[in-house]
């Protein structure tokens, strides 16, 4: 017999089977079965596949020890796996080498590292940093701390009513005073993907380095730091289906080499004496103390997982969910979507007339639908759109159209409940 089987390119049901948590129900109560979990909050943090959980368990059970320190067998084994994860991250971003990859605890720590080390060394009073109005607080507050310390100025690129970055305004803000551009690559509220390559080119024409906050962008598309020509690129592991406690700073090596340490401690020094201490070369220079060894190894496996599914295939699947959900939600009277930029990521922020997002969040949760409500750590952006808070549904590689339907149904129930 000769049957031709064509496998679908993206089998979401098979993908879902990899995520143990997705089969649970929520809000079980005496005598009443729970609701199936509809997890639409992956932009806050993504769930973890079995492969990541197992790899971490296996490492802890079989290979665990501290790294870079021991001559013994386990230390060598653990170090090898940790460094292998660094190579995986480098491949994931198409970095020239694993030397460009610094592990941090989070995206937040990565931005703080650059603000502290690069910022305090190379910026001084009167210098300017350009950010956008849609930054996450993680890419605002570290620069404000630098502002307090150094008297620098923060200039803000606006967005239009769709959430598209105003490149003309950006051009106008770039000046001889500009010493750094720190810009999101994808907004965690609007989903807007910024034109990173153009942003970098415009800055480089003036000799200004650019940092991209890729916390969202790296999850939903293929990122090539060399093609973008990013000077710094930042990711956070827990949104990439990896564990918490892992962040990534990619930096061009000649920049990293010029930068002083961020924190002092073990692992980052060449030699220590009370007369003077010499520091290791990057990335070790920026990795003081024992890192999140198990978690970094887990992150490497998470990136493998994404590569195996295919990042283009993931992006296409998520794009379908975005389009479908946007279309379905838009049919609800009084529902407004914030962020309608072309080519946006799978993130839908919305409000429902007459209903506060907080109430909406509580009610859809009773239907098993997990969405984020509030200001999403992006208060300036909320101000820009004159809205106190929004609800946000975000889609990941494991979501389905049926889940989008569940969201829509629960929002309709909210509307009926409030007679809105």
């Amino acid at each position: 017999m000769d049957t031709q089987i064509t496998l679908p390119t993206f089998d979401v049901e098979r993908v879902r089977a990899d995520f143990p948590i997705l089969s649970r129900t929520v809000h079980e109560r005496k005598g009443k079965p729970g609701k199936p979990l509809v997890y639409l909050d992956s932009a806050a943090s993504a769930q973890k596949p079995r492969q990541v959980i197992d790899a971490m368990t296996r490492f802890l059970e079989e290979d665990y020890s501290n790294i870079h320190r021991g001559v013994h067998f386990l230390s060598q084994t653990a170090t090898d796996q940790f460094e292998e994860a660094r190579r995986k991250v480098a491949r994931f971003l198409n970095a020239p080498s694993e030397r460009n990859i610094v592990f941090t605890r989070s995206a937040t720590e990565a931005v703080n590292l650059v603000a502290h080390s690069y910022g305090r060394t190379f910026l001084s009073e009167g210098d300017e940093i350009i950010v956008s109005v849609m930054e996450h607080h993680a890419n605002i507050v570290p620069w404000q701390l630098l502002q307090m310390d150094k008297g620098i100025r923060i200039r803000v690129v606006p967005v239009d009513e769709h959430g598209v970055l105003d490149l003309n305004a950006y051009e106008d803000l770039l000046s001889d005073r500009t010493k750094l551009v720190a810009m999101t690559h994808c907004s965690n509220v609007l989903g807007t993907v910024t034109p990173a390559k153009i942003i970098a080119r415009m800055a480089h024409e003036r000799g200004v380095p650019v940092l991209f906050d890729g916390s969202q962008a790296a999850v939903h598309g293929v990122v090539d730091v060399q093609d973008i020509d990013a000077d710094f690129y930042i990711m956070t592991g827990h949104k990439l289906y990896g564990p918490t406690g892992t962040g990534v700073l990619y930096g061009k090596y000649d920049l990293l080499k010029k930068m002083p340490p961020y924190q002092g401690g073990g692992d980052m020094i060449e030699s220590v004496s009370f007369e003077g201490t010499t520091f290791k070369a990057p990335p070790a220079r920026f990795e003081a103390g024992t890192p999140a060894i198990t978690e970094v190894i887990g992150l490497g496996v998470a990136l493998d997982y994404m590569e195996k599914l295919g990042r283009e295939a993931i992006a296409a699947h998520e794009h379908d969910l975005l389009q479908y959900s946007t279309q379905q939600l838009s049919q609800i009277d009084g529902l407004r979507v914030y962020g309608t930029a072309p080519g946006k990521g799978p993130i839908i922020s919305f409000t429902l007339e007459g209903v506060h997002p907080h109430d909406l969040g509580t009610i859809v949760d009773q239907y098993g639908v997990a969405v984020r409500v509030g200001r999403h750590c992006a208060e300036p952006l909320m101000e820009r759109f004159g809205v106190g808070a929004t609800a946000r549904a975000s889609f990941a590689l494991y979501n389905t159209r049926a889940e989008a339907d569940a969201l829509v149904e629960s929002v309709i129930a909210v509307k009926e409940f409030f007679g809105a």
Partner: protein
Amino acid sequence: MMDELRELYQEVILDHGKNPRNFRHPDDANREAKGENPMCGDRFMVYLKLKDGVVEDVAFQGRGCAISTASASMMTEVIKGKTEAEAKALFETFHDLCTKDDHDHGDHGPVDEDAMERLMVLSGVRQFPVRVKCATLAWHAMNAAIEGEDKASSE
């Protein structure tokens, strides 16, 4: 609709949420304090007119969810005419109502039992721990205003 939701969003709450009472800024207010929930962006100003230790007028403005708005609105109704001590006792007792099981409620001095009876509709938040702050937001601001602070300390 699930029972728990009906319990949380009782008709009275929906009504106060939509048509808040004393939603204004009295000209003769002599105390005011801000209450803010950084998580969801809810923000209220509570205004008091205190005279000889009595709350002669109380009102509020701002934006918030149905729970926080209803609670603020109901608060203005029950606090008006109370002494400072009575208002504070109501605050403490209401706080217990929202956060603790019945048998753990403390004794905060004599309270207006009728007022507490009315506020019972808000006790549904106990089943929704993340919403407790909504129910108590304006109350914290009111308490701060009595204490002469200009904003409620975030817990």
